[in-house]
């Protein structure tokens, strides 16, 4: 039943997004593709952070893996698009497996440290092996033109938006079902009480690694989509800033909820563009106009998280109140994440001299 409901919602959304993409101009279509690919990446991250209770400031590195996989496959083997996207997700999942195994023993800030350094180190390989990865210039992504049956005048940006939105909807359906499955429940158990979960017979290490694999696969798919929408893959697209933006989007939107992933993606794509528009239309000097969006984005982050501690989705739920079935409300971040904080506090009291 749940599967049917999720599928139905996805089909309705697909129709709405399709109509929207026709109504919007080329730049808005581009933004739509951007939002959709961030939904894929943040959806995967919110599963990792919100459901399994691990942190990653390195998912931009998995996006890089996916993007370079896609670029290389399109360039050398000219695979069909769907196969390229699947392969990108699969290769990134392998990278996620490696990181997950290394990270399974690490907690909190130590895991944050490893993933942060991963986000710095992995893209630097592209400049080390210039012959394969094209160095700082990166690789061009040979994206296929829209299929012939759509007509010869079909805009490329709309086609890119369709690809990204389709991928996002499929990812959301899969993640929503995964979250409701036995695996999703086991992740919540591990997140809320590791020892109790282990006593109940759950394989804690395997579950934590699996969460990393899922989130890396999503990031890899998102990276491939990023390469396709920007038709370029270069180390400059996969900086630490990207990884931090993903985590920020997941937390701002509301951890552990897929609707939150959508909110977060809308914020990190639309807020900077919107502020730039306002700044340039007021004729501010170029140094100020170029940096106001950055400063304003920082202010938005601080304001949103201080005003809505459970993220935007948490605020929406409180607003809707009783309209939301009680069973769902339990997922909301605050209670569970607070409990996750508890071991850290214990640790501090015993650890400090």
């Amino acid at each position, binding site marked *: 039943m749940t599967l049917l409901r999720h599928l139905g919602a996805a089909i309705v959304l697909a129709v709405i997004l399709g109509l929207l993409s026709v109504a919007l101009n080329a730049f808005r279509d581009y933004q739509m593709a951007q939002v959709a690919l961030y939904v894929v990446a943040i959806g995967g991250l919110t599963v990792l952070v919100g459901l399994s209770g691990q942190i990653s400031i390195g998912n931009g590195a998995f996006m890089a893996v996916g993007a370079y996989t896609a670029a290389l496959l399109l360039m050398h083997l000219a695979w069909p698009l769907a196969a390229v996207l699947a392969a990108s997700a699969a290769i990134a999942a392998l990278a996620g497996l490696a990181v997950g195994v*290394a990270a399974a023993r690490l907690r909190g800030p130590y895991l944050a440290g490893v993933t942060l*350094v*991963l986000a710095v180190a992995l893209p630097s390989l592209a400049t080390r092996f210039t012959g394969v990865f094209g160095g700082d210039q990166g690789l061009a992504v040979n994206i296929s033109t829209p299929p012939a049956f759509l007509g010869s005048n079909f805009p490329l940006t709309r086609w890119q938006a369709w690809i990204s939105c389709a991928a996002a909807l499929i990812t959301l359906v899969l993640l929503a079902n995964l979250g409701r499955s036995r695996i999703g429940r086991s992740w919540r158990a591990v997140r809320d009480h590791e020892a109790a979960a282990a006593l109940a017979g759950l394989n804690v290490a395997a579950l934590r690694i699996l969460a990393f694999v899922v989130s890396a696969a999503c990031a890899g798919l998102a990276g491939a989509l990023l390469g396709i929408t920007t038709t370029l893959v270069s180390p400059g697209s996969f900086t630490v800033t990207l990884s931090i933006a993903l985590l920020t989007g997941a*937390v701002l939107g509301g951890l552990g909820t897929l609707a939150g992933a959508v909110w977060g993606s809308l914020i990190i794509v639309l807020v900077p563009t919107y502020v730039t528009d306002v700044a340039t239309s007021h004729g501010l000097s170029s140094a100020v106009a170029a940096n106001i969006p950055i400063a304003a984005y920082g202010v938005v982050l601080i304001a949103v998280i201080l005003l809505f501690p459970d993220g935007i989705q948490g605020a929406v739920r409180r607003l809707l109140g009783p309209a939301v079935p009680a069973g769902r409300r339990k997922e909301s971040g605050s209670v569970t994440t607070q409990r996750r904080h508890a071991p*850290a506090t214990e640790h501090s009291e015993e650890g400090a001299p």
Partner: protein
Amino acid sequence: MQEFLEFTLGGISFGMIYAAIGLSLVLIWRGTRILNYAQGAMAMFTTYIALIIINHTGNYWAGFVVALAAGLVLGAVCERVVRPAEGKPPLNAVIVTIGLLILLEGLAGMIYGGQFRSFPTAFSITGLHIGGTALGIAWNDVFVAGAVLAAALALAALFRYTRVGLRMRATAFSSGVASLLGVRVGRMLTLGWALAGLIGALAGVLVTPSTFLYPNSMDSIFVLGFTAAVIGGLDSPVGAVVGGLILGILLNYVSGYLGSDLVPIFGLAALVVVLMLRPSGLFGAAATRQV
């Protein structure tokens, strides 16, 4: 052999900078269980202030002192911004510090522009020799290492021998117990952030002559300082210094013998190896698990 000596001494100088950033992170972590991602941006901002003072007065030390004072103030201000997020889910405070990082970098770009600026050194940068052997370091590198060491010792003395230090340790141990005993916990936390801001500002002024100054100039230094703190164990100030030195020397060997583009990968490798052996860092307390 001479190369080895040069790389080692140069690595110590860089390592002390990572150690300073690591120390500032440890100070805040111990007090508030928050990782301050804005630490690098705060140091960048105070270094801009130092540069303006130096250009106005022509006196390096005037800029140096003002930067440290600005670090104190900025640290205290940032603590006040982060405080409402304390007691909320732990990632909320992380997001606030990330917001501060982005805000400070944006402000720096708005006020000072994005161009690269050079920053003066305190002492000569001509290489030192003993007999006929070049050491690969200059008086300025000695100053860098000495200044961080002095700051670390001063902090240790503050915590060990003063009443304020005792109160801060009590707060870090258990804020509830400390406030029952009459410690003004809020003030201690603000003071901890202020001291961290000061140490960060010191690192900024010391490292910037070798990196240039621009709104993102401290990003990579911050990542290395964070790595140093994690290698050492986030609860341990000694660990931050040791971690910084290990990282500085190792990465200087890598960049000298193998090429600078491999530095990030070896940084990752060092971090992973250390945490595989000790998941809470070299000097961190063994993780206790709630059952």
